[in-house]
């Protein structure tokens, strides 16, 4: 399976608490719920397509609990590829503390997580999808386990909150595979990591 990450971020790279003010107040975060004004049919269509390709899901513990308490308890609306995928595909959650996950079809991964993910990637059809799960995505990037990154960038600056990319992380070059923007000003970019960047020196073109 190809491991793909899908992250909704602000222009300043924050991913915390997108869905509502009370979704994730950790660290004193007070600006949750920033995605709502920008959600439109094209953004939803992109996300529906992504979920439609899912073979299994891989979550960090915090995102798993948010999803389990929302998508996991909502009734089947009958027309949501997201609901159908999340409630019918296998789910894996990386956690050393979660003992009894409450959402059906969930397996807890602990211990040698890298090997477990390697086995998952080797053995199945479809995508192994990570949604949200910032700490997990940062770890996967550092382990070079990410095959594709979907970034959904909302036109807002928060100035607060957990960012997708840490202050100190690996350097990495990527290929831009696809890009589009929605009527509400969301840009969607798809990247494939390709290895270390090449650094160089240029004459100072006007923005350097």
């Amino acid at each position, binding site marked *: 399976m190809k491991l793909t990450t899908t992250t909704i971020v602000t*222009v*300043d*790279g924050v991913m915390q608490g*997108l*869905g*509502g*003010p009370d979704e994730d107040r950790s660290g004193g975060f007070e*600006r*949750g*719920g*920033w*995605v*709502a*004004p920008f*959600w439109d049919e094209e953004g939803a269509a992109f996300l529906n397509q992504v979920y439609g390709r899912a073979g299994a899901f891989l979550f960090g513990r915090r995102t798993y609990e948010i999803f389990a308490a*929302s998508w996991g308890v*909502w009734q089947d*609306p009958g027309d949501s590829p997201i609901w159908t995928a999340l409630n019918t595909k296998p789910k894996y959650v990386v956690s050393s503390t979660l003992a009894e996950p409450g959402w059906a079809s969930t397996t807890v991964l602990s211990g040698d997580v890298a090997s477990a993910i390697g086995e998952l990637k080797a053995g199945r059809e479809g995508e192994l999808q990570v949604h949200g799960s910032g700490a997990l995505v940062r770890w996967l*990037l550092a382990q070079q386990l990410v095959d594709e990154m979907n*970034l959904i*960038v909302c*036109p*807002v*600056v*928060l*100035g*607060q909150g957990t*960012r*997708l*990319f840490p*202050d*100190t*992380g*690996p*350097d*990495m*070059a*990527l*290929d*831009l595979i696809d*890009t589009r*923007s929605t009527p509400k*000003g*969301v*840009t969607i*970019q798809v*990247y494939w990591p390709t290895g270390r*960047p*090449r*650094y*160089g*020196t*240029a*004459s*100072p*073109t*006007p*923005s*350097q």
Partner: protein
Amino acid sequence: MPTERKAVDMRKLMVTTFVSLDGVMQAPGGPEEDESDGFAWGGWSVNYWDDTMGAYMGDVMSRPFDLLLGRRTYDIFAAYWPTAPEEAGGKPLNDATKFVASRSRPTLGWGPAVLLEGDAAETVAELKRGDGPELQVHGSGNLIQTLVPAGLIDEFRVWTFPVLVGSGRRLFAEGTVPAGLRLIDTTVSTTGVVIATYEPAGALVVGTFGQE
């Protein structure tokens, strides 16, 4: 009752910034461009330049403008552009009035240049109320850290390069005033650089997203 001058009468302040995918704006052009805070990854932007980006930058440079620069970017430009008048961008950059924000009193040998002394948020606000063409900020990471929270920027042109740098000074630092933006335009280079143009769009709006 005093009438305030309308924003529409003020000089527009446009910022062009090269950022990495992880939001770093430090030293895009070379290893020695800005090594502050021990930054060792300068030069991350240079392998992505293409004709699309050149044409886009040429368009930005083709209309009347003055430059508003931090001292470090001014020094980098001043060391190069007087020697390259024939290069793309050379003439407009050499001709533009350079307003330089600095807390010290540097010698501004690359003219025409005007030193902005004192608090940059105040001096730039004053500059915007005066007459003249568009004000363009290029690079100038420290200055931008003052302009963003002061709400002085009318247009962001954010060039996002397909690279994670892993550390370094960011365009939007922790503590930036929250704000909505309006996406005006996107241009994509053949090398994977996404140039997004944003305008400020008022205060942050939040809501709850979920099943209806």
